């Protein structure tokens, strides 16, 4: 009675490519074959890749807008509160709320709010900082920041079948196909 060796759980199967056109083509084929849980890795942004994989446009610009508006309101509120409510100074009957003179600070706060929210949102959406990720177990993956391109079909995919995915990826222009352990 031979016990099958316990397989470490699989994160996915990754294929390595020499250039971006091969990766783009493979992603297109994978999408056509019905895979949905996949991710591509590249040393430079590959245009169209995200869309090919079925990615939706990020809502980041909306967060920036919201951050900017919030910054503007906060900047104006600070100045209005201080100049008209908390510490009003009557200078020859001039108005307390001088929106024009408040604009430069309001503007600086707008940019600051928009910038900070973009920065935080981008990293939060990417789930950074995340020093460990299973994909780093892929053989040769340190080349993904140099000149190699990777496509990984993940085990969470409903259509995932170890053998079929292996065969499918070998059928693309992959230079190597390997299993990625979690």
């Amino acid at each position: 009675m031979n016990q099958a060796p316990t397989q470490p759980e699989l994160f996915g199967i990754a294929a390595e490519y020499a250039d971006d056109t091969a990766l783009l083509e493979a992603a297109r084929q994978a999408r056509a074959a019905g895979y949905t849980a996949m991710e591509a890795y590249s040393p430079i942004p590959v245009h169209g890749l995200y869309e090919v994989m079925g990615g939706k446009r990020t809502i980041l610009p909306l967060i920036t807008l919201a951050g900017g508006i919030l910054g503007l309101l906060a900047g104006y509120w600070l100045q209005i509160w201080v100049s008209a409510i908390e510490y009003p100074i009557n200078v020859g009957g001039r108005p307390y709320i001088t929106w024009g003179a408040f604009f430069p600070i309001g503007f600086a706060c707008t940019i600051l709010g928009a910038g900070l929210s973009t920065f935080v949102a981008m990293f939060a959406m990417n789930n950074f900082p995340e020093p460990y990720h299973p994909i780093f177990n892929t053989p040769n993956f340190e080349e993904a920041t140099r000149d190699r391109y990777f496509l990984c079909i993940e085990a969470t995919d409903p259509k995932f079948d170890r053998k079929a995915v292996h065969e499918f990826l070998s059928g693309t222009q992959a230079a190597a196909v390997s299993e990625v352990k979690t």
Partner: protein
Amino acid sequence: MATDASKYQEDALGQVDVMLAPGQTFESIDRDITDIVLTNKAPKAWWIGLGISGALMGVLMLSVVMLLFFGVGIWGINSPVGWGIAIVNMVWWIGIGHAGTLISAILFLFRQDWRTSINRFAEAMTLFAVSAAGLFPVLHLGRPWMVYWFFPYPNTLGMYPQFRSPLMWDVFAISAYATISALFWYIGMVPDLATMRDRAKLKIQKIIYGIFAMGWRGSATHWHRYEVAYLLFAGLATPLVVSVHSIVALDFAASVIPGWHTTIFPPYFVAGAVFSGFAMVLTLTIPLRKIYHLENFITLRHIDNMSKIMLANGLIVFYGYLNEVFFFFYSAHEFEMYMIWNRMTGPYAWSFWALIFCNGIVPQLLWMRRIRRNTIAIFFIAIVINIGMWLERFVIVVTSLHRDFLPSSWGMYTPTGWDWALYAGSAGFFLFAMFLFLRWVPMISIFEVKEVVHKMEHKH
């Protein structure tokens, strides 16, 4: 590839226009840029530079301690010139910083691919220049330990800052600018830090770059968000940089002093900032590309383009000078006319004419292509422009203040040794930070250069 780079450049002079030397692969780009940082042997010039700037850092410490101990009386400022070279230096440094944002944000929005070789470096310059600038208004306060009074916080004094003053606008604009510049710089660097992590040979390097890379793995989703964020940042930094120097200009223009009270100040300060900033970028780039053999990345085309931007901004600045002179006379305003006459013929006339020479006449050499492609000539022209831009602020600050409305309140201003020591010290701080940056961080954006190489390959 690195070996025949300089030869190629010579061949290219005046004939082929290259943005990056040909024949580069992603691998060679990685090697050429990361090796500078990952090696345990820094070039001799780096050690010499670090030593000199480190010594100047000592001068900075000493002059700050002296200032804190004895007060601003050790400077040359007095009535009527209360804003001495401390303010001159502050405006000068802030202006220098602006070129970095222009290169990283505005040229990005205009899709100027050549910016990729210089943007990282120029942004670092922005950060350190803004930090150096920040020293001066704080130390000029008289009681620098009360600097937190700048900020509106609830306090038992029941006092708040005056938000209608351009000086308060400055506090907000400059701190927002420094923050946004730092974030923009860091965002732009994350993929390269991941490259550094993967290229590093020592464990400690892997760990440190790994921490700062935050686990970047170049996934398509991340790249998508990253590119959107970068574009947004460029869009935010562009109006910010214009507003910052406009507000610095309003520090002067909102007052009633003849020579300061003009509407042309904000635009002409912005142009001057870009002018001096590019001069500083060139002053630093030219020796660097030589020392680190970066001729493959920073080609004569870069020097040429930067010189053109410098020339264009120089002309705007020069137009500003002429326009000022015209309007002071055209105003028929007794004090304004006296101010400009005093500027040109009074006790500080030397600074005015030196300024015209440095910023008006010398930059005209940049019309010549032969000069724009001669690194040594450009290096010296850039230094002359740096001096010129410093003189510009000196002329604005000192000649306007020293003789205002009442002859009985006229006076002279001479900077003391401690004034100069603090200035030298701030330069030491700036250079020291630059040298550390060169040693620890890839000074050229690796992935952006790769993108450009990739684009060029696919064009052919």
